[in-house]
Every structure is written in structure tokens, then in C-alpha cells.
């Protein structure tokens, strides 16, 4: 194992990064905390309000619904993308020109700006000019994402699966590539079934990358903004309004500094809490592995 040396001069190496991140994270976050406990009228008039904004935010039914929708959305996309991603990683060719070609094609959705992803699906699903919208209507289904909340939800989930399954697939693909051939040879000698190979050789190797994948996917799906904003604008009604969009409307649209700051802090804390649970899980996994190794 790699034993680290105790040396506090390492702080000097970290300092430049720390200053930059402090500038772009700590100062703004302090501003948010500052606003969340005050009622600001203008630059000179402000009152200390304590936890009033927090109470108001937590009791706001519109925000509670947005939070529920957000959780429903995040868990749905995780439940679809993780198994699908593993499946695709198992199917991807391992060598030759096909391997590179498939890699590039699969990666493509990840590198498209998020609002363009929204535009692509907006065009694709329109009833008059989009292939999918037109096709579904020709098949006799009255598909309309601006009227039906079910259609809007289905389309957003399909869009997210299209957009982000590649990340899980590529993570798993890289995990699978690191399994030595000898393992597969041993399995063949044992006449292990395909399922046994997956369960006892491939899946254990994938745990690490899957934890990273689930973490990244949870975070990003919880912060989703541009794609549904472009595709449905949060509608019909507010059926696809997620947390980021509620927050942006509050902070920029209505300029409600206090409530939106309190909302920001609660929002951030929820993500932190969930991610902290994941982080502890990663650490415990690594600890287990080290104990087994020695």
C-alpha cells in the first residue's frame, strides 16, 4: 500500500486551488446565508428575520410538491439508467474498429450542451415537425407534451435516459475492461453459466464505478434545469417544474432574496445529506477491501 507522509507543508500545494474555490464557493455561499436570515428592502434598509424564511419555505406547498417531483424524477431515472447502462456496457464490443466507433457514438449525447439536448427533443417530439411526435400520432396515440402531464413526464424521462445512460455505460465499460482475462478462462474451465460470470466476476468489479456513477447521476438529476426548461418550460401547469427551476424563478424572476436564499440552503443541504451517505458507503467499501487485502 501507498503510505502517505505526514507533512503540513503540503498546504502550500493546495493554497492556490483553495483561494480560487473560496472565491467561487465560500464568498457566494456566505452571501446566500446572509440573505436567508434578513429581509432586504434596499441597500440600507434590512431587518433580521431569523428562521422565518426557512419556515415559510418548508411550509410552501408549491415547493413541497416540487421536492416530491424532484425525488420521483431522480429515482425513476436512476432505476432505469443503472441497469440499462450495465447492460449496454456488457454488449459493447471490446476490440477492433467497432470498439472505437461504438465508444464515440455512445459518448456523443454527453457532450451536447444541455439546452441543445432540450432543443433536440423539442424538435423530435413536436407533433407537426418531429419524428417521434408525428409517429405516435400516426399510430393513433394523441401525444401532446404541452397538454398531457403524463406525456411530458414520459418524454422528460426518455430524454434523460437518452442523455445520461452513456455515462453509466462508459463507467461500467471501463470497469469491465480492467478484469484480467484469466478470470474468464477460469470461469470457462469451471463451466460457469453466463449469469454466474456476471454475478461473481463482473458485478463485484463494477461496485466501485457504480457507486461513482450513482453519485454523479443522483447529483445531476437533482440539479436538472436546462433540459426540461427548454422542452416543457415546467408545464403543463407545474407538472414538470423541478427544484432548480422553482429556485431560478424565485431568485431571478421575482427577486425574492430572502425566501430564495433560504430555499437555496435547504436545497443544497438535501443534496449534501444524500451524497454524504454515499461517500461514507464508498469509504467503508474501500476499508473492507483493504482489510481483505492484508
Amino acid at each position, binding site marked *: 500500500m501507498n503510505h*502517505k*507522509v*505526514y*507533512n*503540513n507543508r*503540503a498546504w502550500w*500545494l*493546495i493554497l*492556490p*486551488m483553495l483561494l480560487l*474555490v473560496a472565491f*467561487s*464557493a465560500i*464568498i*457566494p455561499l456566505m*452571501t446566500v446565508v446572509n440573505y436567508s436570515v434578513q429581509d432586504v428592502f434596499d441597500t440600507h434598509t434590512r431587518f433580521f428575520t431569523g428562521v422565518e424564511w426557512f419556515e415559510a419555505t418548508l411550509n410552501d406547498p408549491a415547493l413541497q410538491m416540487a421536492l416530491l417531483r424532484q425525488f420521483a424524477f431522480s429515482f425513476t431515472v436512476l432505476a432505469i439508467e443503472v441497469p440499462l447502462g450495465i*447492460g*449496454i456496457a456488457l454488449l*459493447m464490443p471490446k476490440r477492433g474498429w467497432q470498439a*472505437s466507433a*461504438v*465508444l464515440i457514438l455512445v*459518448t*456523443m449525447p*454527453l*457532450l*451536447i*450542451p444541455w439546452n*441543445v439536448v432540450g*432543443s*433536440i427533443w423539442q*424538435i423530435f417530439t413536436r407533433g407537426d*415537425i418531429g*419524428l417521434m411526435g*408525428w409517429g405516435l400520432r400516426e399510430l393513433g396515440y394523441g401525444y401532446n407534451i404541452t397538454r398531457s402531464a403524463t406525456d411530458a413526464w414520459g418524454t422528460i424521462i426518455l430524454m434523460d435516459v*437518452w442523455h445520461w445512460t452513456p455515462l453509466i455505460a*462508459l463507467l461500467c465499460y*471501463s*470497469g469491465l*475492461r480492467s478484469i484480467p482475462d484469466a478470470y474468464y478462462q477460469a470461469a470457462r474451465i469451471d463451466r460457469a453459466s453466463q449469469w454466474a460470470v456476471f454475478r461473481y466476476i463482473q458485478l463485484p468489479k463494477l461496485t*466501485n464505478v457504480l457507486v*461513482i456513477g450513482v453519485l454523479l447521476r443522483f*447529483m445531476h438529476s*437533482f*440539479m436538472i*434545469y*436546462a433540459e426540461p426548461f*427548454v422542452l416543457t418550460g415546467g408545464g403543463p401547469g407545474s407538472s414538470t417544474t423541478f427544484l*432548480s*427551476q422553482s*429556485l*431560478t424563478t424565485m*431568485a*431571478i424572476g421575482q427577486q425574492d432574496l430572502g425566501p*430564495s436564499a433560504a430555499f*437555496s*440552503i435547504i*436545497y443544497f443541504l438535501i*443534496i449534501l445529506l444524500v451524497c454524504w451517505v454515499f*461517500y461514507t458507503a464508498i469509504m467503508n467499501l474501500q476499508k473492507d477491501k483493504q482489510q481483505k487485502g492484508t
Partner: protein
Amino acid sequence: MNRSLPTTPEAVRERAARTDNLRRRQARSASRQWRRRGLMTAYIVFVLLPIYWLLNMSLQSNSEILGGLTLWPQDVTLEHYAKIVTESSWYMGYVNSIAYVVMNMLISISVALPAAYAFSRYRFIGDKHLFFWLLTNLMAPPAVFLLPYFQLYYTVGLFDTHVAVALAHCLFNIPLAVWILEGFMSSVPKEIDETAFIDGYSFPRFFVKIFIPMISSGIGVTLFFLFMFSWVELLLASTLTATNAQPIGSVMTQTKGASGIDWGALSAAGVLTILPGIVVVYFVRNHIAKGFALGRT
């Protein structure tokens, strides 16, 4: 006589069963091979179909788009692309986006390299907490930082500049870079550092001459991720800019004219935002498999 041919009835039966089994297994694996290819092709079609549709739209004139649905352009036109590369309000969007993405990549990688080295090689007061705090920045929703950023950059006079966006994207890109690089650096044995120091290398010289070349594929992968996350982000980029540094994403949202949305131009602009990504993926295609595990398999 061929000695390998069996003579007793049991042996004959056994040999027949064995060859039969082999043939059946080969047939099954061949059909499995075809099923795999079929499923993979189906997924690729699913990925490509919306993109194809965008391309299809971008090659049609607006009257053809609205005139009726056609599976491929009947009358290929490049007018939308011509408009984008000649009108400065359009192509400056690309220039701005690329400017702040490159700036952000340079800033992030240059401060992340020493920091990641420190995390991978030393223990120091508060190292674990600091690392976790860094990761929390990766989890911060950009929407939370929208208003404070706007005010902060307005106050320091950086509003509507490329630097503002590049610095704002550091919020998630520096932690990401430190995280990925730390993984790659930890897989380099520590003995290399020690040998170099015994040989009389100073730290900066060792770092630039020996260490950086050793993790060059890790740096390439990190740059790929930095590009990816800075290129696709729009919420912060469009809030912190107005006219001088406007990214292509927010230029695209302004295509709604008096006569409705200019679908052709929107599609052509969309197609052009995909191209830089493809170029970048092509360069790192051989490292991508390793890179996506972030150096942690």
C-alpha cells in the same frame, strides 16, 4: 487404422455426444453473438435518431420544414449554416463559448495538479475534511449560486466577460479535476518520487520533468472532463453574460423572431455545438475507457 477412432459402442456414443454438444454450443454462441449485435445496434439507433432528426431539420429550408414531414431533406440547403458562419451575432457565440471553456480548462488544471499531488502523497491537518468539502462543491446546484455570482461579478466589474464564466465554472471543475487527478496520481508508485529526490531533483523540476509526463493520459482524460462540463453548462454562463461574452446556448434561445421560432437556424446551430465534442472524443478515444473510471478501478 486410426487409433483415435473409438471401437467400443460406449466410446462411440460418448464421442458422438461430445461432438454434438460442441456443435450445439457453437451454434448457441453464434446466435448469442447475433443477439448482442442486434441489441447494440438498436441502442445506437436510439442514440442517433434524435441527432439525425436535428441534422435533417438543419438541411431543410424553413418552408420545407413547416410544409410537411419528410424523412430526409428533399432539397438540401446550406442556408442556415451559411447564416451562422457569416453573421457575427451567431458565430461570436461559438467564439465566446470556446474562449471561456479553454480559459477554464487552463485555470482548473494548473491549480488542480499541485493540489491533487498533495492529496495523493501527504497527510496533513484537515486533509480528509478539505477533500470532502471540495467534493461538496461538485454537488452544489448552479441555481443556488446564480444570484450571489451575479452580484459578486457585477461588483468586481467582471460581469459579461469570459473570465467571469471561466471562474464561475471553476466551482465544479476544480473539485472534479482534483478528484480525477488524485486517482491517477495514487496509482503511480511513491518510490519514483523518492528516487528522483535522491538523484537531486528539486520538487518543481521533478514535477514538470518526470511526474507530469508519467500521468499524461490522466491529464488528457481530466481535460476531457473539464471540457465536457464547462461546454455543456448554460445556466451560469448565460446569467453572467449579456452581449460581449454571450455563449452559443443563449444565442440559440433568441431565435424566436416575429414569425415564430427559426427551426432551421436553431437546428443548424445545434448541430454545430455537437461537433467540438466529437472532435474531443476522437482524440481521447483510446484513453476514454480507462478515464471514465476516473483512475479508480
